[in-house]
């Protein structure tokens, strides 16, 4: 029997070969990314009730023999170009991932159960689905919280909003990238494979509180804005199509 295609999602990837500090936050289709620290103080200032300051380090592939504060998440820079979550077109950057780290002004790590601060080469297992590969750049987005704020749920949420606000500069450019310049193009389908074994996936995700939280359906892939915590859904089951899942409908709020 033929497959019935319900909807198609195209994810175009644009690979960054080089990431450096420069005069502006910029990405190009020929694989160059520049980052500026200008504006970081102003961004932190917007969240001054919970955030003391932010800094950025560009970590080159293999340059992992260095101290890191606790790793809060690994986030791809992705943006919806056409259509709703799970259909249409999404652009994503490969070769570089955003790694927010968190500590408060007194050196208290932003963690719940176990903290990953230490030498980065020992604290990050590379080449997993959820971690950068050997040859990827990492943008360490280093957040210093106000005293005690690394343990407060609202402060963690604010921190992720701030990271997203910073990523939005790149998203706006990525959204306009020409389709033909993509380094990879993936097509995914929600489809009915008639006559084949019907399989349902169930994922239990934590919904306890600060750093033990999961958000779903953000406006942008792996984003925060527009999303909602599973806690606000009373932790009750929510059904996603495979394509919605593939399109960044889940944001870990570690």
């Amino acid at each position: 029997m033929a497959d019935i295609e319900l909807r198609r999602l195209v994810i175009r990837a644009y690979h960054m070969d080089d990431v450096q500090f420069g005069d502006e936050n910029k990405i190009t289709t020929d694989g160059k990314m520049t980052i500026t620290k200008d504006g970081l103080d102003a961004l932190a200032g917007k969240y001054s009730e919970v955030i003391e300051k932010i800094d950025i380090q560009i970590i080159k592939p293999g340059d992992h023999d260095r101290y890191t504060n606790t790793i809060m998440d690994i986030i791809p820079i992705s943006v919806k170009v056409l259509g709703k979550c799970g259909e249409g077109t999404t652009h994503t950057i490969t070769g570089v991932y955003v790694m927010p780290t968190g500590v408060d002004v007194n050196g208290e790590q932003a963690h719940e159960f176990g903290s990953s601060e230490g030498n980065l080469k020992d604290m990050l297992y590379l080449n997993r689905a959820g971690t950068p590969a050997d040859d990827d750049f990492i943008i360490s987005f280093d957040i210093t919280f106000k005293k005690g704020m690394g343990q407060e749920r609202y402060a963690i949420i604010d921190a992720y909003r701030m990271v997203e606000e910073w990523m939005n500069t790149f998203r706006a450019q990525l959204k306009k990238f020409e389709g033909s310049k993509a380094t990879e193009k993936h097509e995914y389908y929600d489809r009915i494979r008639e006559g084949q074994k019907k399989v349902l996936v169930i994922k239990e995700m934590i919904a306890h509180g600060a750093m033990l939280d999961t958000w779903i359906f953000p406006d942008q892939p792996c984003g925060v804005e527009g999303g909602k915590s599973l806690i606000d859904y009373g932790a009750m089951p929510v059904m996603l199509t495979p394509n919605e899942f593939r399109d960044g409908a889940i944001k870990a709020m570690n």
Partner: protein
Amino acid sequence: MGVGPSTKETSLHHFRDPLVKLLGEDPGIDLMGVLVFGSPEGNEEKIRCSRTAAVVAECCRPDGVIVETDGWGNLDVDYVNCVNEIGERGIPVAGLNWSGTAGTFVVESPYLDNVVDFNKNPEGIESNIVGENNYTEDDVKECIKKLKIAMLKKERGLK
């Protein structure tokens, strides 16, 4: 996301999830969807949410279900209850779960035989290494194999 640094799944993990990837690519599987439920703190809520997930599964009439979580310890309460409720409904079930030596199930069920332990830490503990105890494509292949055998057994009336 999960409990400690080594088991918790990052946003990037969800974006590139090996389970959804391999199930979607398998020509012998009609992937219905991904049902997400939260693991709350209270025990009563845990039982209600995980049972409701099994109820939704039953209403979808699947041939088989894969239950996954990146949590352990108190998250086993909901996890095992969900697997158990699906098993009791006569639906073949397999799973992915981190156990190692430190996170073995704190509750029991006769339906846990097809749950793959995706521990990667040499000592079987929750480490502080981000990504270490995450499931990989190899774990997913093992889990899909177990589910396919369970579905075949049901089809042929075997135990």
